[in-house]
Each structure stands twice: as C-alpha cells, then as structure tokens.
C-alpha cells in the first residue's frame, strides 16, 4: 500500500461568528495516497470547501478555530506549522484550483505576469528562464498560442481558458497534491468535460494526488478512485467509488445518487432529497441526517459512529444492520 500524501484525522473545526462558535466540521477523517484521485462529495454547505481550505490553511486565521484533530500533509501537521512554513507548502507542494475562474485571477495583471510571479516565487529563477517556464506551463494546459494568451488580461479570456490558467498556476511547481474545489461548476457543460480530462491527464502524467471537491456524483464517477461523502460537516460514508456507486450504504448517499441523472439506475425516477441541510447551530442530537432520512429508527437519536473495514466505512445504524461487518 502506498503512503498517504494527506491524512485528515478527526478534524473538528469551528468559525467564530457574532452569534458565537459555529462548528462546521465534526470529526472529519479521510486520507489520500500518492497519485490517487479522491472525491469529496456533498451538498453546498456540507463543509467540503472548508475542509479543502483547511488543508491549505486558507481559512481566515482570526475566525477559524481548530478544536481537535490533525491534518497531516506528508507526515507533518498543517495546523501547527508557522505561516512561513505554510508558504513553502502552498503552491509548491499543494496546488489549489478554485470554483470561480472569473474571479480567481487578478484582473489588473496579464495572465503571463501572474504565472511569472508564481513561477519565480517557486523556482527562484531568472526572468528569462521564468518566461520559458510560463510558456511551457501554458502549453501543458493545452493552450495553443501561449505567447498571445500570456499577454492577455483575464477579462479577455473565456471561462474555460481562465480555468486552464488557474490550473497552470496550481500545477506550476509540480505539487504532490492538487485540491480542485468544484473546478467545473461555473463552466459550460462542454468545457467541463475538457477541464476534467485535463486535470485527469495532468494528475496521471505527474503522479499528482487530487482532492476533487464536487456536489456532482457524475463527475466523481468519471475520474475518482475513492470518495468521501460529507453531510453537515460529518463524514457519513467513504470508500472506493465503484463500490459505493454500486452499493451505497448510507441513506444520504443513496438519495444523492437518485438525484443524479447519469448515475441513477435506469428506470428509477430522479428524486430530489426532501428537507434541507440542518442548521449547524441546532443539530439533531443523534445522526445528522435523521430528520431527512426515510429509514429513520429510534436508535438514530444517538450518534452513529463511522464503522467499517479497510477503505470502506459508513456512519449509519440502519445500513449497519443491513450490511453487517463488511
């Protein structure tokens, strides 16, 4: 078994707000091995992006409280690193691609200059060498006229082009881990497929591990090997994508699957999940999904632990009955 690039262990994290502390992640655990693509799945508000930003420590320091747990990147805890150490890791060891390519680039600087700054920061090379590297980085993300594009400002480029630039930035130092936070959500369907293919290809080519954040199970099924399902700040299920898609154990995962056209089994009608995400300030005492769950039982008033063996685990009393000791 290959070693883990990233291990998130029992991460509990809160935001300090005017209304007091709000716990947005509770005991989140998962890991990513070198070169592996892992999908982090959930509705918006489930804590996906928070998890991702916590890994790169991009959350605002003043309002974020890590209550317990660790985030081990290459064996070292990200939470206890100094900002200077963190800067060595961000971009260099962990690349990051954001959801919104429209706003993810500095509007007042040409994309070439932005790439140049980042590349020179990473490699400490001369302007001339950096310029060549910019060219190569743009070619890597399949931009056909790198010279021309480098001189353009973000607003002159299409959404897909911009997202390529963001990917080029993120991959410029050949990181061990790429965090892609809903990189295709804001794009047209046709462009989505291209960007997905690009990320997949770059990851394979460079042996980069990818944490792929999405609410779209279809996307996960296309590119990820394992997946982690997050609900209201808790991991409710995790395991190999193929197994989960064939055999979803948690009622929430099932509901999610039924809500996706591509993955839903033929013949079964598409279904929206009734109810909405619980208010993080007033969570149910037991299972967080219980209020929306069709299989709710008496036992669900106590919190189900995340149980399982090997790669697979689920936090559910009901599925624990049905599939004992997998």
């Amino acid at each position, binding site marked *: 078994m290959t070693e883990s690039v990233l291990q998130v262990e029992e991460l509990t994290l809160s935001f300090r707000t005017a209304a007091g502390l709000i716990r947005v992640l509770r005991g989140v655990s998962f890991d990513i091995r070198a070169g592996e693509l892992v999908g982090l799945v959930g509705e918006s508000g489930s804590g996906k992006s928070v998890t991702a930003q916590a890994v790169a420590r991009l959350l605002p320091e003043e309002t974020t409280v890590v209550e317990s747990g660790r985030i081990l990147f290459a064996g070292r805890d990200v939470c206890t690193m100094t900002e200077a150490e963190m800067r060595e890791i961000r971009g260099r060891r962990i690349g990051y691609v954001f959801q919104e390519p429209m706003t*993810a680039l500095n509007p007042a600087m040409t994309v070439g200059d932005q790439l140049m700054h980042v590349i020179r*920061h990473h490699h400490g090379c001369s302007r001339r060498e950096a310029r060549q590297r910019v060219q190569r980085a743009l070619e890597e993300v399949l931009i056909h006229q790198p010279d021309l594009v480098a001189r353009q400002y973000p607003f002159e480029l299409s959404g897909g082009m911009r997202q390529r630039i963001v990917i080029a930035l*993120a991959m*410029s130092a050949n990181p061990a881990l790429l965090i892609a936070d809903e990189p295709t959500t804001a794009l047209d369907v046709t462009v989505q497929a291209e960007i997905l293919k690009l990320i997949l290809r770059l990851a394979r080519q460079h042996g980069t591990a990818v944490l792929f954040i999405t609410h779209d199970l279809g996307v996960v099924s296309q590119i990820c090997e394992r997946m982690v399902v997050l609900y209201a700040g808790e991991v409710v299920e995790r395991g190999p994508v193929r197994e989960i898609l064939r055999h979803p154990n948690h009622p929430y995962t099932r509901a999610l699957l039924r809500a996706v056209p591509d993955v839903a089994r033929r013949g079964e009608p598409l279904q929206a999940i009734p109810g909405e995400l619980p208010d993080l300030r007033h969570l149910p005492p037991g299972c967080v999904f219980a209020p929306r769950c069709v299989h709710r039982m008496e036992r669900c008033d106590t919190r189900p632990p995340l149980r399982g063996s090997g790669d697979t685990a689920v936090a559910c009393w009901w599925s624990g009955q049905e599939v004992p000791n997998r």
Partner: protein
Amino acid sequence: MLVFVLFGVTLCTFFMSHVIPGDPAQMMAGPHASADTIRSIRRQLGLDRPLWVQYGTYLWGLLHGDLGVSIRTQQPVIHDLAAFFPATLELVLYAFLLAIVTGIPLGVLAAVKRNTVWDYAARVVSLGGVSVPVFWSGLVLILLFYARLGWLPASGRLDPSLPPPPTITGLYTVDSALTGYWADFFNSLWHLVLPAVTLSYVQLSIIVRQVRSSMLEVLGKEFILTGRANGLGRGFLIVRYALRNALVPTITVIGLSIGSLLGGAVVTETVFDWPGMGNYVVQSIASLDFPAIMGFTVVIGAAYVLINLVVDLLHYALDPQIRR
C-alpha cells in the same frame, strides 16, 4: 466639455449677480457719491447696456483670456489671479502630496488590520476630517503649534525678513531650491507645514475612507485567495494584487476630492493669511467685486475639469478593461 461648463457657469453667476441688487457702481463710487458719478461709472463699466449684451461682451473677453477688470484693485482680473496663482498652487500641491502619502498607507493599514485598534483609529481620524471645519482645525493648530509651543509660523509664505527667491515657477520651495536660496527653501517649507496639514486633512480622510473600503472589497475577492494558495507573500499580495486593484476606484474619488482641496484652499488661505487666489477672492467678496469673484470661479472650474481629465487618463492607464 470644458467650454460647455465654463459657458454654463458664467451664465449662472453672471445673471444672478446682475438680477439681484447690490450695485457694483455704487460700491466703486463709495457711499457718498452723487447719482451722476454713479451713472458715469455704470456707463464706464457697461452696466447700462442690456444684460445679454453685457454677457456677450464678457464671454467674448473670456475667449481672449480677459476676465474683466477688478473693481477693488482696478487691475485686470487675469493679472491679479496670475499673481496669486503660484502661492495657491504650492499650497494645494503640498497638501495633496501629504494627503496621498499618508492617506493611502493609512487606508491600507485599516483594511488589512480590520477591526483592530488601527482600523478604529483610522476611522475616527477620517470621520473627523470630513466633519471638521477647515477654519477650526487651522485655528486649533495655530493655537497649539504657534501660540502655545511656538514651533511653527502661522501666517504668510516666508519670514518678512527674508527676500523671496528669484521667480522661476512662482513656487517658493522650487525656486529657492533651483537657485540655491537655501534659507528661503527651509523657511518657506516651514511656513507650509501648518496650512498644508490643515488643508490636507479633509482630503486625507476622503482617501482613507475610500482606500479602506475598496481594499476590504478587493481583499475579499477570490484572486487574493488564489495568490495565497499559490504561495505568494502577504506583502506582495497586499501591494501588487489588492492595492493595485483598489486604486482604480480610488483614483476617481481622489480626483473628485480635489474639489474639496480647492475649496478648502480658500478657507485655509484666509486662516493662514496665505497670499493666494483664495485670499484674494475672499477680499473681493467683502467688496462685492464680481469680476474678481467670477474670474476666480471660472479659473477654479476650469482647473477642476482639467484635473478630472487627468484622472480619466490615469484611469485609462490603471484599468486594463478600459484600455483594451
């Protein structure tokens, strides 16, 4: 635009000043003049002709750089203004520079250290600046630094004992430095401190407010996060990424705030007995010298329009979206 604005404003002030009583001929002649004298002065000034003819004459003169003759000084207004212009320019220039070099860093600091003591301090300072009457802040500074401490002079551009430097630009600090009149240089700089500080305060507050709010807006944008995620340093991000973008809206506001600087100069010059155009116009007001008042208004209006033209050009340079 410029021509249009000048046309409009001269029209407004001209007709208003002539429809409303307050007879300049009476003012010139003095309170005890006979009706005959007044009548002859009226004829001499062209005041007996129909209003639109008078206005036409005035506009015609304006096109040739003629702003009429001051009733008070009996000199062409354009000469008077030209004589007082350099002093005003020097004061406004220093105040402007002061406001920029202190206002921008203060605004950035307030935004970066949001909700800390720095931020509150910057907010109180800027609230004070937009609320304080220029004549009162000048007064307090005079009381403190001139009357009580005796550190700084409170009137004029130069000690009376010093001969002014040879005129090149009319700006004492520049002329004295160019010609090596170092005593004049330091002395005139010394005299500039209180009026420039007083005048800059209003604009400083406007700049601090604007920089703070646009920095806060830009710092919340995703591309700052991208920069951080790519390992770029905080200082680099604040200056090259955030400030660079925050400057675009700020430039516009700075341009508009120059209006308050020009207006404030009138009051500041009065307070510090600064021999500039503002002082001149206030004295003209006291004697209802309309050609002088209108001349001043036209010149300031033109300057303001020109400044905002420069601002547009700067905008063009700073914002790639406009440039392309």
